[in-house]
């Protein structure tokens, strides 16, 4: 239980710090880089290594690449839709969320035999 609470607090803190960096940096396209910062990974990797070992954390990092590919497609699609200006940012980012899930699980299924 304590580990989960620590994970939540550290995660919230690290993600918030990167988000604040995004708030204060201009131009917006540069600040946007921080929306894809490895904040969750940085928050969690120390705990994972401590509890599960380096091999476990390395395997997580391997499939993190697939999650990042899905994030790239998700963010690019969101940018494209928002540029047209017809749908709000909240609706666009939430409606596209299945794209991230579908792509990352799909890619994982594709490479599952090779992991």
């Amino acid at each position, binding site marked *: 239980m304590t580990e*989960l609470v620590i*994970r*939540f607090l550290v*995660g*919230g*803190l*690290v*993600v*918030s710090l990167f*988000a*604040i960096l*995004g*708030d204060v*940096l*201009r*131009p*917006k*396209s*540069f600040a*946007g*880089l921080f*929306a*894809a*910062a*490895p904040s*969750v*990974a940085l*928050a*969690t*990797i*120390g705990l*994972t*290594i401590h509890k599960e070992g*380096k091999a476990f954390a*390395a*395997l*997580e*990092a*391997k*499939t*993190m*690449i697939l*999650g*990042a*590919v899905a*994030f*790239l497609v998700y*963010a690019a699609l*969101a*940018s494209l839709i*928002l540029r047209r*200006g017809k749908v709000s*940012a*909240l609706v666009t*980012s939430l409606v596209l*969320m299945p794209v*991230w899930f579908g792509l*990352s*699980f799909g890619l*994982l299924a594709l490479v599952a035999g090779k992991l």
Partner: protein
Amino acid sequence: MVELKLSGLKETRPHQYLVRFLFGGAATLLAGLVARYFGPAMGGLFLAFPAIFPATVTLIESHEKKRAAESGYDGTHRGRLAASIDAAGAALGCVGLMGFALIVWRMLPDRNPWLVVPLATIVWAAISFGLWELRKNRLFGHHPRSSAHRPHARSAP
């Protein structure tokens, strides 16, 4: 030119900071729980989950709309354009995220985590900042006339 504008902090309200903290904490917790119950391969996907992306682009849109409203016009389109520019930046950052993960995956098993994690973070920054610079200077060039209608036209690529 990249600028640091501390006034950006005042635009975000306390409850918006709280929302991002909660989403960030929840995403980190989720990644840990998924890894515990479904294994590291599944858990790893969630290390690149766009946890606060919806909150961030919504915030940017609303800030831009508010600025436009203060000038006396409807900033709906302008707000969405600003969110679009931020999302394009996030897409570039994802390539850096892949670089981060690659370094951790390949180097962590045989090396000291205290070296690998900072190195991976530097690689994320180098790839992301490098791609941003490349996009700004090489791929699209500078188009003063077309950028005149964009939010923060002077500094946006």
